[in-house]
């Protein structure tokens, strides 16, 4: 039932909005995973980010794609919680102060064990539209714990112009999706160090961002 609703929502709402109303310019789509486990990491500017990434993955994989999303926002009332958990299939994460001895990304960890595809926005919030904020370290710990899962950096541009934080109606813009070469948590150059991995990821995202020349938007 949940998988059916998810497919229905994506065919009737998400794909028409993302592919027709907006229009995507995807570079290196062939690098996107065709199977789990995998971690997709992108910069975050808009609610559309998650939907775009999910719409780009093979439709058959959709039931096993799980975006990590803030519990305080997406579970704030019963309807929203039902939609987020049942239709989209989010993995809720608590943004409020961490209790000692608990892992906020435990759900993502379990999902990777189930060979699912986890989508993560390490900036932690949509923040200021169209700018890359400091990355939080959770993603690096997750990647180090799952050396078998490729960590794919994806740079998104334009979605924050189309539907920034606080906006209700999306404005049509062509949006860019630049997929980067996968990193692996098991690589020697990180030496098991989360900070090194995070730097590597940050570097990849910045490099992807520099591929495009984007018009001013102030």
């Amino acid at each position, binding site marked *: 039932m949940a998988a059916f609703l998810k497919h229905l929502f994506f065919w009737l709402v998400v794909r028409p909005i993302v592919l027709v109303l907006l*229009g995507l*310019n995807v570079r290196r789509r062939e690098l996107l995973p065709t199977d789990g486990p995998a971690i997709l990491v992108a910069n975050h500017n808009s609610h559309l980010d998650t939907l775009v990434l999910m719409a780009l993955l093979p439709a058959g994989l959709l039931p096993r794609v799980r975006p990590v999303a803030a519990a305080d926002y997406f579970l704030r009332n019963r309807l929203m919680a039902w939609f987020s958990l049942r239709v989209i299939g989010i993995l809720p994460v608590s943004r409020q102060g961490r209790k000692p001895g608990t892992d906020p990304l435990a759900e993502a960890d379990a999902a990777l064990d189930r060979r699912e595809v986890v989508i993560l926005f390490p900036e932690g919030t949509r923040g200021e*539209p169209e700018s890359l904020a400091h990355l939080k370290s959770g993603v690096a710990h997750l990647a180090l714990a799952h050396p078998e899962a490729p960590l794919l950096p994806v740079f998104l541009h*334009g979605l924050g*112009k189309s539907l*920034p934080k606080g*906006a209700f*109606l999306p*404005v*049509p*813009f*062509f949006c860019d999706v630049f997929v980067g070469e996968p990193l692996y948590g098991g690589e020697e150059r990180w030496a098991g160090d989360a900070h090194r991995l995070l730097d590597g990821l940050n570097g990849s995202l910045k490099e992807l961002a520099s591929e495009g*020349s984007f*018009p*001013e*938007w*102030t």
Partner: protein
Amino acid sequence: MIGSLKPPVVWALGAIFGVLLLATVVVAILKWRRPGKASDELGVRIRSWWVMATVFTLALVLSRRTSLVFFAFLSFLALKEYLSLIPTRRADRRVLLWAYLAIPLQYWWIATDWYGMFIIFIPVYMFLLLPLQMVLVGDTRGFLKAVGTLHWGLMVTVFAISHVACLLALPEGTNPVGGGPALVLFLVLLTEFNDVAQFIWGKLLGKRAAVPTVSPNKTVAGFVGGALTTVGLALLMAPWLTPFSRREAVVVGLILGVGGFIGDVIISAVKRDLGVKDSGAMLPGHGGVLDRIDSLTFTAPLFFHYVRYFH
């Protein structure tokens, strides 16, 4: 349906696909004899032509309504591409939505045969409405630039392009030979043919750049050779698709050849100003939609008003 199209239109459409088939075979031989980047690039470009010709044919053949929806969608893609390229202001999000709303309205005037509204809606009413919307938003930083670029884009991508569709709303009897669809076909075919002819003549003979500071690839030989070839094709096609005499065919051929060139270099100047090579990436080998219809933004209004005034 196809039955309602006059035979010359069906023949001309058939001829287009014949030429595409020929081009596909030639490029396949070229690829086999001289493999390399150039022939690969040509192959990609021709594959996109197949897609464009098929979509265009379906739009023209199915019904007047599908034709209007097709051209409205073309305007939408072009405007979206334009607005994605230019600097816009965050505060103007809602104003941009109003600009998009002009598309269905503009094509609605055509569908309801309301020429008076069609011809003033964007130049007058949108021209007045957009700055009003921006004033209500209240941000004066970059106001003039924002309102100027937005209205210019609307004129090019919606107002100008809608003239192609408006050929379908000319009174019965304007074109006894093939009706509105034949005029649309004549205009689009010759405009696109002119682009290709200018490209080929430029490659073969081109030396001196026609407008070096705007587009170093556009040569005098390409421009002249292309325009003359277009006049030739206009002479050949006019009796089949249009009410034009031989002399008129020459004049219209020249209008399309020269107008197409100007439309092309104007969009080139815009891209150069913005520092991009292509307007988008929707059409492999061609770039964006705006790259493909740049000439049409100029030829469509000129052709439409020629027909409306003289026939």
